């Protein structure tokens, strides 16, 4: 662990940032009661993965240049940004519709369907 602090910034540091974002997002999804908070958690998870992709795709960080994903990583990151926006738009519309019918966006109140 200490070596991470002393060595130059490399792939591992980026992966740790990505992992922290992923875990924060997952915790946020699991604990938030507000539907918008859950959606924010989803954004964090997607962007945590995106940090990974960009880091793995970078030629400057790769352990072994022959086994890097290169440009693929950057392209995937771009696609994910677009998809995350589309998904957020749809999810927000659904949350708005839920609010219209229930007058709340507390996900714990979504409990009419069970069994």
């Amino acid at each position: 662990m200490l070596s991470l602090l002393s060595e130059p910034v490399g792939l591992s540091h980026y992966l740790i940032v990505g992992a922290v974002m992923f875990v924060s997002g997952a915790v946020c999804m699991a604990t938030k009661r507000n539907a918008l908070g859950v959606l924010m958690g989803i954004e964090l998870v997607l962007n945590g993965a995106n940090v990974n992709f960009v880091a793995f795709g970078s030629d400057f960080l790769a352990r072994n240049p022959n086994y890097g994903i290169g440009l693929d990583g950057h392209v995937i990151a771009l696609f994910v940004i677009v998809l995350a926006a589309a998904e957020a738009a749809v999810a927000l519309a659904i949350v708005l519709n839920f609010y219209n019918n229930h007058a709340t966006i507390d996900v714990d109140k979504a409990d009419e369907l069970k069994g």
Partner: protein
Amino acid sequence: MNLLELFTDLLGNTESSLRLFLPELILCGTILVLLALRIFSGLDKIPSWIVALAGSGLALYYAAPWVLLEGTVKSQEIFTGMLLYDGVTVFFRGLLLFFAILFILLTRVTELVQSEDDADIATLVLGATLGMCLMASANHLLMIFMAVEMASVPSYVMAGMLKSRRRSSEAALKYSVYGAGTAGVMLYGISLIAGVVGSCHLPTIAASLADPSLASQLPTMPLVLGGLMLAVGLAFKLSAVPFHFWCPDVFEGAPAEVGGFLSVASKAAAMALLVRVAVGFAAPAGGGVDVASSEPIVAPVVATAAFASQVEGAVTLTAADTAAEPDGLLGSVRYFIVVLIALVSAITCTFGNLAAYGQTNIKRLLAYSTIAHAGYMMMPVAAAIHILGEAAAGYSAAAGDAVASVLLYTAIYLFMNLGAFAIVAILRNNVGSEEIRDYAGLVQTSPGLVICFALILFSLIGLPPLAGFVGKYAIFYALVEGNLISLLIVGGLNTAVSLFFYLRVIKVMTIDPPPEDRGPVSLSLISLPGIYVTLITAPVLLLIIQWDGLVRMAQAACRALVQ
């Protein structure tokens, strides 16, 4: 390579790819036409469902699944390896487009939407079908994620189609939150796999995993973690335990027609993707056949989470121990996939059938039945990978046949479940309820519909001589071939268990007296809904006479899957 070469290469590749991509292009075009028609006054009088029907019909014509009857389709990568065009692609694309046509007709027959929402549902159905076609042909980790999202996002909206219903909006919220969450987890898993192996292209990944010189360099822990996270996304689409929570809630809240769409099309596409991923990782092209795993794998039957974690731990250990094998990590990867799929399918199947018992709502019952059937359909995939891991070169045909049983079951399942949900939707329009007890005594006033429903339910159990029997037989035969006897026992026991809750529905409809407060419900088979139901039920009843064609198509589709 200079710029000119690059340019001509790209043009040539794109041109030849576009030709094989024509059905999807037609779907895209139809969606654009549907959206544009509403802009211009005058043109907005054209009914959207006719345009959608014409578009999907044309796409089906160009997808041409019937070429499988004449022989195998040459497997080739299109769009520089992003997609794979082979028999499985052709089969599933045909199936999905055919289902889209039937579904659009169903929304007309049951009058799901008012005329101003007509274009919305047509656009969403075609958009989801487009994503599902891509799921069936994905050959790249990016395409896997994109296709799953393209199929999911329109489905979220469809679940909330009836905007003013409380339950419908709750179903859409649950579906979109669960779906987006699992998609995020899947993307993180994909990033780990891609980064560790150093490629996003499935055949390249398989080759790297099979490369003995690389085996010691690849860190196993992130690979296992990535594999499990990818499995989370797949399990959500398949509604496999433990990611099945959304399924009953969404099916109950969404209109029955949409339930049918999610139950058939979404499941078929997810099965195709599971086949793509499992075979993609475990079967590198042209080699890596004889793996030194001598112990036959006994698929664990114990359905406890604690046991699952033990197995995962064991797999990690095995992966570390066998890193020095001549086939690289391939043996461990296969073992991992077989154990994971076998375990999940056994639990899914058992859970679905047991949970269906206490249900009083027919849509919830069908949701649990869908979960159980996802379990049955996953079993042969485990068998196929097991055959690959166990045997020498000659056995790859057996692995292909095991996958073919999945295709066969999916095709039969299309008719069974679409029929069931169509009848539920028609009864909703006439009885005004979706509770099973309100179906009591229906046989007295509308015997034709009840007979059709009974046939479909018997077929879902898998009783001969109905179509479901052919599918179950093919699946269990694949399990015998794959030497996964414990899975076979689980499947057999589950079939027996499932008998009772399906029969309960039939008993309520036929033996119980009709409730006093319900008006007379008489639905003749000669009416429009009746004719639709009859046409969907007919293949369930008649497939046993001539099932050779379908089997040949499924086997031709899978012949080139594993070389």
